[in-house]
């Protein structure tokens, strides 16, 4: 589903990713772990298509298609979803209006018909309950005044609503207490599907206690320096990044 080969990415002329390769098949959950500044967020942004992240070498194929050639909205319509580390607050747009606009924009790009307000509301309600997203939150301006946990729950609600093929979760655990983390992780686990691939990006091992990955890649200084099964997370937790990064260098 996702084939990243020898990816080099520069931000404002500075190379951040330096030859990253990664392959994910449908149904798999991969984790990317790495210390601060290793290029984790750069990877998530370049996959989602943010401006200012220049691919200088290498390629990203998504279902055989050159992902880099598509604007962010087309990637979304084709099933790429990025749950962001810092969801933005947009005063003046209610959460419900945003969800409806986004959902129908994606549908339209896929040649599907719009869902009416009632249809969207039903769909959102059905998914919101499990994530403890209240009606009141849906009426508020998007993310405005939401707690860290509420913001992350809303990200996962969107993931449930858009039903992406490739979901990238960027530091979804950051800023969450253990109860909020558990709720979010349950939401993610409920979306595990043989047709869906997930890339979980995190600094800490604790998220992977709840979302257990099939494979773990350790990112340092813009490259994958170690790979392994879920037990690698425990090793990292015990010995720290320095140990593994140092070995690789």
């Amino acid at each position: 589903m996702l084939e990243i080969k020898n990816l080099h990415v520069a931000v404002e002329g500075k190379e951040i990713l330096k030859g990253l390769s990664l392959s994910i098949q449908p149904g798999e959950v991969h984790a990317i772990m790495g210390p601060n500044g290793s290029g984790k967020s750069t990877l998530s942004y370049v996959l989602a298509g943010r401006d200012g992240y220049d691919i200088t070498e290498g390629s990203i194929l998504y279902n055989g298609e050159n992902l880099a050639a598509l604007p962010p909205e087309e990637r979304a319509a084709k099933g790429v979803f990025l749950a962001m580390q810092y969801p933005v607050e947009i005063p003046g747009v209610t959460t419900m209006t945003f969800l409806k606009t986004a959902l129908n924009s994606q549908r339209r790009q896929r040649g599907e018909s719009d869902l009416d307000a009632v249809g969207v509301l039903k769909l959102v309600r059905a998914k919101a309950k499990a994530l403890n997203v209240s009606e009141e939150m849906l009426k508020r301006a998007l993310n405005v005044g939401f707690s860290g946990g509420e913001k992350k729950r809303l990200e996962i609600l969107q993931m449930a609503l858009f039903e992406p093929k490739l979901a990238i979760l960027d530091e979804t655990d950051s800023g969450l207490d253990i109860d909020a983390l558990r709720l979010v992780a349950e939401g993610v686990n409920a979306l595990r599907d043989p047709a869906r691939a997930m890339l979980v990006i995190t600094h800490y091992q604790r998220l992977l206690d709840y979302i257990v990955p099939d494979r773990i890649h350790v990112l340092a200084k813009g490259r994958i320096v170690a790979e392994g099964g879920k037990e690698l997370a425990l090793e990292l937790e015990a010995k720290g990044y320095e140990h593994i990064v140092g070995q690789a260098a």
Partner: protein
Amino acid sequence: MTLALNLDRKAQAAAVVHSHGVPHRRVEEWKYSDLKSALGEAGLGAVMAEWLVRDLPAGVELFDLAQPHPPAWVSAHVARPTQNVMNAASLALSAGGVALRVPAGATIGAPLKLDFTGAGHVRALLVLEDGASLTLVESVGVADFRNVGFEIVLGNNARLEHVRISPRDADAVLVEEISLHIPAGARYRGHFAGFGSKLARMELEIVLEGEGAAAHLSGVALLDGKRHSDVTTHVIHRHGNTNSTQLFKHVAAGQARAVYQGKVTVAKGADGSDSSQTAKALLLGDQSEADLKPELEIFADDVKCAHGAAVGDLDAESLFYLRARGIPESQARGLLLQAFLEDAIAAIESTDQRELVRTELLTALKGIA
């Protein structure tokens, strides 16, 4: 024969116009709106523009200022002396206009729709007597040049909601001066939507002159091409325990220019006055311009005055967030612009008028985003 706009007052006004001349950019208050150059050789002219009241609501009295023998309520308030040059010009150079009155205690349910059309100068007077209540919807027609001098007089505890929509046009030069007197317990809510023309300027002078008087102003401007919009306000807290708020949101694309000049004066002894002023602008083009000039003049103690102004661009992070959720760029930009303007629109109390302004904005946004 008694004329509504009496000749002495017209002569005084003509003297004011004569001594100042047509305002131009070297006059401080007109720095961002060069009327003289916009008018060119045609100058101020001396034609009378037209007014139109569609479906005068029951309970509202109307008098044509071009007619002789004005009733007492007109004579008492019309054509107050002014030092404002364009206000004076509208009096000196027009032969008439419209006067409207809502009697004491009357609550008018239907909105009063007042249109200004044609080129030239015209006067308007609106009197709300004690305890009266009205929604005024003012529509500004396109003309090569029009200058409206509008006097609004409120009685104690009167309530006026005023919605004014200024059209999008490349060539029109539209100027209006609104002066308001707000006595004890009276409240004015003014909302101004501007879509920009060659030169569009609305001046508001508001005097809060009684205990509990309040003025709440809000407005949006959405400009593209070479269009211009200027909102110039002066709110004077002459009496203590009065309240004024201002919230203006402007968007300029292309080579458009959005101007907000807002002055708040708190007179000596007007203790307990409370005022706030917020003006924000988004610039969408390399050559678009916003001039925001909030100003405070305080001569009293124990007042609460806040002001702020900010100019920026659409937030790149928000734009990316929306696009990453599948919303195409132009639609995402439109949504963010709408969001930026939203609180200024939400300030309109009447649902019908709020939706009217919202619809106009959405139409204009399609062309800009």
